[in-house]
């Protein structure tokens, strides 16, 4: 039996959830008991063969993993690198996120809770949570910034079809950050009955570690698939970074492979220099947001600055604390990709491979395109780059159609 979910021993974080100076718990005391309960349940589950077997079976039989590693030959020719796409877009619900929600929904059931709440930006995590809630017969409430409910109306409808209640959040910037605040408030008030199913590797301990462990199968699979396909490890792994769950998922198994370079591509929006972006590592500074210490977009008073990205899924002014640590330690490199670069890569994949990617994932594609010439120069040969195609583009068709001016008037 595969135990993809079980993390190797002796790695970060420490017992209190610290990745170096990042991570930890910056939460109201009212949540500490629930976080301790979750931590204990998660640790017990990860050493429980029956839990791991149930999780593996769900991933295989329900989510459709292992996802393919597809050699994108026509794209490769355009980019000047041998590009292998980790097809997380082929998973049930269309993204890597199904792995995390299945893991957390199983834990919710184990803890005897009957209700899950979630926050969502693009709606992918909301749809995944609503899906798992339907499968496990849990009550489901999804908080979503009002702005995002408008730009992702299709996913709102999906969540409702699946039986979830979608609550548009009208405070602050009315995007993902504010949805997360509302979900935290709900959790403080209903912690006895409710599990907060956080959608990314951020938030207070143990969420960053737990979410990473539930999605780390992406990298475990990709590593083996790359070995099988090419006979060697890749030269680089590329992923987009908003909160950072898909990136951690694919990075984690490669962290000990020091010859494999890890690249996280943040949403550069209109350009980091314009201040209108969502690049927390490239354009932010260390601070505390949503229960953890990490890189945050903030002013000198510590007030959070609104993020901007054409991708609702990356539009978040923080990042998971493990990415902050991977950046500080130099193990991973984080670079911004702006909206136009991402959309050019979106179009390129559509036209060369017949795959419509999520705009999130298009940032990773654009990043691979950006680093390919430099890697080729350094290596003196065509580099092999694994790109995490973390989600499919159905939800983004309207945004992309508007961007390219190809929507017929209704």
């Amino acid at each position, binding site marked *: 039996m595969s135990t993809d979910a079980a993390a190797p021993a002796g790695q970060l974080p420490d017992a209190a959830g610290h990745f170096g100076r990042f991570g930890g718990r910056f939460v109201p005391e009212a949540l500490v008991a629930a976080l301790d309960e979750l931590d204990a349940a998660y640790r017990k589950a990860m050493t429980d063969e029956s839990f791991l077997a149930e999780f593996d079976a769900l991933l295989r039989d329900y989510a459709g993993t292992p996802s393919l590693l597809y050699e994108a030959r026509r794209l490769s020719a355009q980019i000047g690198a041998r590009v292998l796409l980790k097809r997380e877009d082929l998973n049930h619900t269309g993204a890597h996120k199904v792995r995390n929600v299945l893991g957390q929904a199983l834990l919710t059931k184990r803890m005897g809770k009957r209700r899950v709440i979630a926050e969502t930006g693009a709606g992918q995590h909301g749809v995944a949570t609503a899906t798992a809630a339907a499968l496990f017969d849990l009550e489901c409430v999804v908080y979503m910034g009002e702005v995002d409910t408008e730009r992702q109306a299709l996913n709102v409808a999906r969540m409702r079809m699946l039986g979830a209640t979608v609550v548009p959040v009208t405070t602050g910037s009315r995007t993902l950050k504010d949805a997360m605040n509302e979900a935290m408030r709900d959790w*403080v008030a209903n912690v006895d009955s409710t599990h907060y199913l956080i959608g990314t590797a951020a938030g207070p301990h143990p969420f960053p570690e737990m979410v990473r462990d539930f999605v780390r199968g992406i990298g475990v699979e990709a590593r083996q698939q790359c070995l099988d396909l090419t006979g060697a490890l890749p030269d680089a792994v590329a992923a987009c970074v908003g909160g950072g769950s898909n990136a951690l998922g694919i990075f984690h198994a490669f962290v000990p492979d020091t010859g494999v370079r890890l690249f996280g591509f943040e949403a550069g929006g209109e350009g980091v220099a314009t201040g209108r972006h969502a690049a927390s590592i490239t354009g932010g500074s260390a601070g505390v947001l949503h229960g953890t210490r990490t890189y945050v977009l903030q002013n000198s008073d510590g007030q959070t600055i609104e993020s901007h990205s054409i991708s609702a899924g990356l539009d978040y002014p923080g990042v998971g604390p493990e990415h902050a640590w991977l950046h500080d330690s130099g193990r991973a490199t984080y670079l911004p990709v702006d909206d136009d670069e991402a959309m050019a890569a979106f179009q390129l994949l559509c036209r060369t491979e017949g795959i419509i990617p999520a705009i999130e994932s298009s940032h990773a594609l654009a990043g691979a395109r950006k680093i390919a010439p430099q890697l080729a120069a350094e290596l003196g040969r065509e580099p092999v780059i694994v790109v995490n195609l973390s989600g499919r583009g159905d939800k983004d068709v309207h945004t992309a159609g508007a961007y390219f001016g190809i929507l017929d008037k209704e």
Partner: protein
Amino acid sequence: MSRIGVAFDKARADGRAVLVGCMPAGFPTVEGSIAAMTAMVEAGVDVIEVEIPYSDPVMDGPVIQKASDIALAGGVRTADTLRAVEAVAATGASVVTMTYWNPIEQYGVDAFARDLAAAGGTGLITPDLIPEEAGEWLAASEAHGLDRTFLVSPSSTDARLKMTVGHCRGFVYATAIMGVTGARSQTSEAAPVLVSRLREVTDLPVGVGLGVGTGAQAATVAGYADAVIVGSALVRCVLDAPDQAAGLTALRALSAELAEGVRNPAR
């Protein structure tokens, strides 16, 4: 040793609980917030809790969040909140600051402690900082002689109550309910239980907050706690008023009602 102890000693001599009133600095303006807090003191509030407005206040309900948003939109800076502390301390009231952690980290923990002490503040209430993450603040508060108020909750285990009060100085903040700030129609049944659990592990004064908004509720809480903490109901007086004068009038009336409540505890 505790700066806020004066307020508790005085109230104890009168045989009553302390009334703590909360207001975000800079709401609706810095001067307006100083006027509001001064009016509260004049009407009988013993301790003013000056909240530093923050963009992502996860423990606050809609009333205080709206007030904080107004303050931030008006351009209030952390330094302005210290000016408010100084002005209110000059009235003779005890002033404690309530703050989410990130603004303090960005200001510089030791620098903030130094400046708060210089402004006459007694210490900090930290709703999203638990003792485990508070190393820098523990050191800075020692260095500058400031009080530390961590929160405890009905969900806190006995071990956590003991650990948390061990790090408090001045008073401990008992959250009456599982939830966020905001006045509620009924007082909490969990609060008296939590306070009696605290009495087992500490001699520190216990303040009870969240959900208290009327004189009758204040009297109920004063029956078992050493301090009654009121926020949203006071903030609402200013938020709902058509102009500043009306806001101050409403604020004085509610403060007086609450002050009357803590003087007539329901035991």
